[in-house]
């Protein structure tokens, strides 16, 4: 990290909004750079001053009391007024109908939310795996640009054989492979390089679901995540390269080209 980059990222760092990888890089730079460490101290001093000297205005007791009193006089939804008996049947059948509609709707909503939860959990996991590998400098278990070396190494340690391709000609040289843990199972990780960046691609067999080889993109803690399904596999690419570069690589893999 150079001084220019560090200066730009200092406020984000001091707000605690950088991820572990970037924070570590920042700390390393600030230690050896008097200008950046002075700027960091100035930011910290301003924060201390604001928090200790600028007043925090709590709600006055009278306002709090007024809100509570108003609330106490509000009609409650939990205790509706009893209705005359003749109308009751009417409401019961309408209620039953609405109830079953609500159940169906809730089920749809529930499965949608579950799907979404699972996919965001896995997104978080792949980002954590990528960050851990980068931090610990354990990028590859098997280092080779030869896919005929990487593929057998991986398939001998897994119950599936991930497709492995080298894209040196297109600017994404294969660096190697490693084993990771994702969603409770061991998975293959293919490691590519793009200029100065490392790209991790996690691969596991596709178990049902829709084949969608065009990657969907999300950003997490400064990393881009591209997810796609195709060539019998499920793919997650993670990196700090730009989203379009990452998506292009994952699309190539998912299309099995």
């Amino acid at each position, binding site marked *: 990290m150079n001084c220019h980059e560090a200066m730009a990222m200092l406020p984000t760092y001091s707000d605690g909004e950088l991820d572990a990888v970037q924070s570590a890089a920042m700390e390393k730079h600030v230690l050896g750079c008097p200008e950046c460490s002075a700027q960091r101290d100035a930011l910290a001093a301003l924060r201390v001053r*604001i928090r200790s000297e600028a007043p925090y205005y709590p709600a006055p007791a009278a306002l709090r009391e007024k809100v509570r009193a108003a*609330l106490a006089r509000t009609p409650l*939804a939990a205790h509706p007024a009893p209705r005359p008996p003749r109308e009751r049947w009417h409401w019961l059948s309408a209620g039953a109908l609405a109830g079953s509609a609500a159940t169906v709707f809730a089920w749809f909503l529930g499965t949608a939310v579950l799907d979404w939860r699972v996919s965001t959990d896995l997104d978080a996991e792949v980002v954590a795996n990528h960050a851990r590998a980068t931090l610990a400098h354990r990028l590859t278990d098997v280092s080779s640009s030869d896919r005929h070396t990487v593929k057998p190494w991986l398939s001998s340690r897994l119950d599936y054989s991930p497709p492995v391709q080298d894209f040196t000609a297109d600017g994404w040289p294969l660096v190697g492979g490693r084993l990771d843990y994702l969603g409770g199972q061991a998975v293959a990780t293919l490691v590519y390089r793009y200029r100065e960046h490392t790209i991790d691609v996690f691969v596991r067999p596709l178990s049902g679901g829709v084949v969608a080889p065009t990657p969907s993109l999300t950003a997490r803690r400064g990393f881009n995540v591209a997810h796609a399904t195709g060539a019998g596999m499920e793919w997650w690419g993670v990196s700090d390269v730009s989203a379009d570069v990452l998506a292009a690589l994952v699309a190539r893999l998912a299309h099995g080209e």
Partner: protein
Amino acid sequence: MVPDRAPGRGINRVAPRYDALMGTARPVDSSRFEQVVVPQLDAAYNLARWLTRNASDAEDVVQDACERALKYMAAFRGGEPKAWFLTIVRHAGYDWIKRNRPTELIADGTDAIERAADTAMPTPEQNALRNASSTALTEAIAALPLGYREVLILRELEELPYRDIARVVDIPIGTVMSRLARARALLQRSPLLIAIRERSGGS
């Protein structure tokens, strides 16, 4: 520009708004309101107070926000209650400013920002009156243009993460970052603060 330093002022004349709320016969989930909104009243008042720079106006804003929250309670689907309610408070605050100090919103362009920071130069009388540096800081923050003041308050006093600030103010995270940087830079070279620093012999 000088903020009102008496937080208790004006309490006795704020009742009528709430009676209007009571007039609505619509059943509302008050226990949910109790759980979601009541714990955020301090944060709500603090934000409203920094937006309006006045104690009784802040109370009006918080009451308006409570009415709105009660109305939209059913739309709250869990998540971060503080960010949810502060979004409502900010809307109520901006509506109040639009009604009462529309010039402040118009003046919130980038050109005006430099001017606002520079015209905040204290008069000798103010300097004589002001002996606590905390007053100078309070005034310097209060003198920041609205768009910068709110992100600074949400970050430094409410300690919200960027993501929540972006939600409350309805701007992208990148804009949160640039506004924060600008607000801090304006404070660091605010004449109000520099005057204090020089008088107290540096530091």
